């Protein structure tokens, strides 16, 4: 078996500017390994779609080089790259039936009729749309159109498939089931997928690795759990999942622990991730589920808060409290522990370990 290349796709110092004044993508270095499901995640305008479009060939890098399977591809037009693509609004050809849509990339490649039919049947079976060959795209539901779009991008066996927010137009339930379906398709085909989304849940569910984009740069590139558990900077911490923050100044620092005086004047023990010396300004990040309510054991950080708002969420209850001057501190209480009886205005004792509380850049 061939060894999987770790730099199947390689971005080397890629810059992109549309107007000659601002860089949309800044000095991008990114390696994508073969067979990987890599998600480019970021808010709108962060450069993730531009990156995808450069890889597809619809945009030209202003600087730098992109390699695909070892070849530089800057000067190869999109139709010669052999990269499959799923578009945001599916981009199905409205005047062609499902069969003809799927046959389009095969006819272009001059594949003979019998083989076309065989491949289309196989692909439609994969996306569970057998029997829909003669429907027109307008006669399909959003989810079905989406499957056709995926099938069309896969039917010519590309080594790399790009997906540009393909689930954006679907409703929540359908989106979730499609996420699993795409993940399974990826696993069974072993094709390399580069997926663009601004939905962190989607990214966490599907990807092998996630590249978090902001301001034209990759902020962090790592696996889903690493990204959630150990964000390297405040942007990633706040963008992925729910996050409580305090701001303050480092007063003492030792290996594995830093003493930080918050703006409200209290002292928090935190895990120093992006602070080096005392006097550094820091933003402290703490996940809601890492906070214990009425802790039994002794924790480094223990404070009393005041309940401001209680929001029932079905499987859990969200409690907004005022803690150390932060009025937006959120707690997640699983509804299994129904013995807890809260009222707005009550005091609540909270505690957390210094390890779970990450002192990041300001």
């Amino acid at each position, binding site marked *: 078996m061939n060894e999987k290349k770790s730099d199947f796709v390689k971005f080397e110092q890629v810059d992109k500017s549309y107007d000659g004044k601002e860089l949309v993508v800044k000095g991008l270095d990114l390696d994508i390994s073969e067979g990987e499901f890599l998600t480019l995640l970021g808010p709108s305008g962060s450069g993730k779609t531009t990156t995808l479009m450069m890889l597809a060939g619809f945009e030209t890098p202003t600087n730098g080089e992109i390699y695909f399977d070892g070849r530089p591809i800057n000067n190869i037009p999109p*139709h010669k790259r052999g990269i499959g693509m799923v578009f945001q609004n599916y981009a199905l050809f409205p005047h062609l039936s499902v069969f003809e849509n799927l046959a389009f990339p095969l006819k272009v490649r001059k594949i003979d009729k019998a083989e076309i039919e065989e491949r289309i049947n196989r692909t439609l079976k994969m996306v569970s749309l057998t029997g829909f060959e003669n429907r027109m795209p307008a006669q399909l539901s959003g989810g079905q159109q989406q499957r056709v779009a995926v099938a069309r991008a896969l039917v010519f066996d590309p080594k790399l498939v790009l997906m540009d927010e393909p689930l954006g137009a679907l409703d929540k339930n359908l989106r979730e089931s499609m996420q699993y379906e795409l993940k399974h398709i990826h696993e069974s085909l072993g094709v390399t997928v580069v997926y663009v989304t601004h939905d962190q849940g989607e990214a966490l569910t599907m990807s092998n690795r996630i590249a978090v984009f902001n301001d034209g740069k990759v902020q962090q590139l790592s696996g889903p759990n690493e990204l959630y558990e150990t964000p390297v900077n405040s942007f990633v911490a706040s963008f992925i999942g729910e996050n409580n923050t305090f701001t303050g100044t480092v007063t003492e620092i030792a290996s594995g622990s830093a003493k930080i005086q918050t703006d409200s004047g209290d002292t928090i023990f935190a895990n120093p991730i992006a602070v080096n010396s005392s006097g550094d300004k820091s933003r402290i990040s703490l996940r809601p589920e890492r906070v214990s309510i009425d802790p039994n054991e002794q924790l480094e950080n223990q404070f009393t808060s005041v309940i401001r708002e209680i929001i029932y969420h079905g499987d859990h209850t969200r409690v907004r409290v005022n803690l150390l001057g932060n009025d937006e501190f959120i707690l997640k209480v699983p509804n299994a522990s129904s013995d807890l009886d809260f009222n707005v205005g009550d005091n609540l004792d909270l505690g957390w370990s210094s390890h779970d509380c990450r002192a990041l850049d300001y």
Partner: protein
Amino acid sequence: MTNGEIRTSDGELLSVKLKKVESRKRTGALILVLPLLLFIIITYIFPIIQMLQRSVDNTQMNDLLNNTYQVIQNWDGSDFPPEEVVKTFYNDLKYLSENKLHGKIAVRLNYEKGGFSSLIKKTVRKLDSFDTNGNYLQQFKEIHKRWADQEYWLALKRATVPYHGRKYLASFDFKQDFDGSIVRIEEKKRINVTLWLRTIYVALGVTLCCLILAYPIAHLLSVLPTRYSNLLMICVLLPFWTSLLVRTSSWMVLLQTQGVLNDFLVFLGIVADENRLELMYNMTGTFIAMTQILLPFMVLPLYSVMKTISPSLMRAATSMGATPFHAFRKIYFPLTYAGISAGSILVFVLAIGYYITPALVGGAKGTLISNRIAYHMQSTLDWSYATAMATILLVGVLVVYYVYNRVVGIDNMRLG
């Protein structure tokens, strides 16, 4: 509740109540469109009915010579009309001359056969010297030798029927011969068929030119950012805001032998001074000017269709390995069919009835059927001839619309 009838809460039958409520809404809508409806009926429908009627109408002659018409129908057209017919004609003629109405029939009969006008005038002068005791035909023949020509009597018979389709025949260079058969007119007089063919040729040609010119412009309009596309749209629509006459006249300035375009070509040395191009008073002029004037009618429907084509379709096609040209041919072009057909039918229909431009820049070689209609309206005053041709034009356009509606569907026509 009996017989499964559904009633509303106040006990009325649901179907009756629904009709009542809906009809109130309908009346309201009708009142709103009433002014326009009346306007269209008065200024459009009514004149068209008039036109249709006038093209076959001969009731004026029929009224003036009604007695003659009653008896001349019994004459089978062989030899000369029987005494009774000639006598009735004499009486009609006498009555008309006493009331000074014979001028009208003289003009009308002259359309039917040349020389009739003077024949009637001479006859009327001698009516008083007629011997009313008998042998009218002989006396007619003595007044003028043309009455001895059977064709004049046949012409009289044909001219008195209340309705006829002769102008329609004439519009296609046919006529009804004296024996009633339909034959083509003499070759040197055949002008209408040439004009019809030329009109269709020009209309098709202009449509094609407009399509070739408008397609790229419409595409550009649909892909440019709004800022630039608005500016370009103004350029496209600018001709709309200029008087048609002014535009056509400016083409005359540009195209004439000593005009701007020829001067420029001579200046560039492409054309020798002594062989300046004849760009006007021929088909070339008609083509150029009409294409320019009708271009917006092609651009707008194309633009409105192209605007709805997502750019990601072309991207999708190229990402699947299609060359840009292949993607255009298989994906983009088929999606613009609705715009192409809508624009083509608009331009074609407008071009087929175009009048001012061919009249001004067309010259003799560039005149179209509409100019012929105007000629009969204004110069020969043969309105039934003009309306017959106009009716044929109208029917032709309706047929084109019908076919379009069957093939494409009229609701696919959009202008903005």
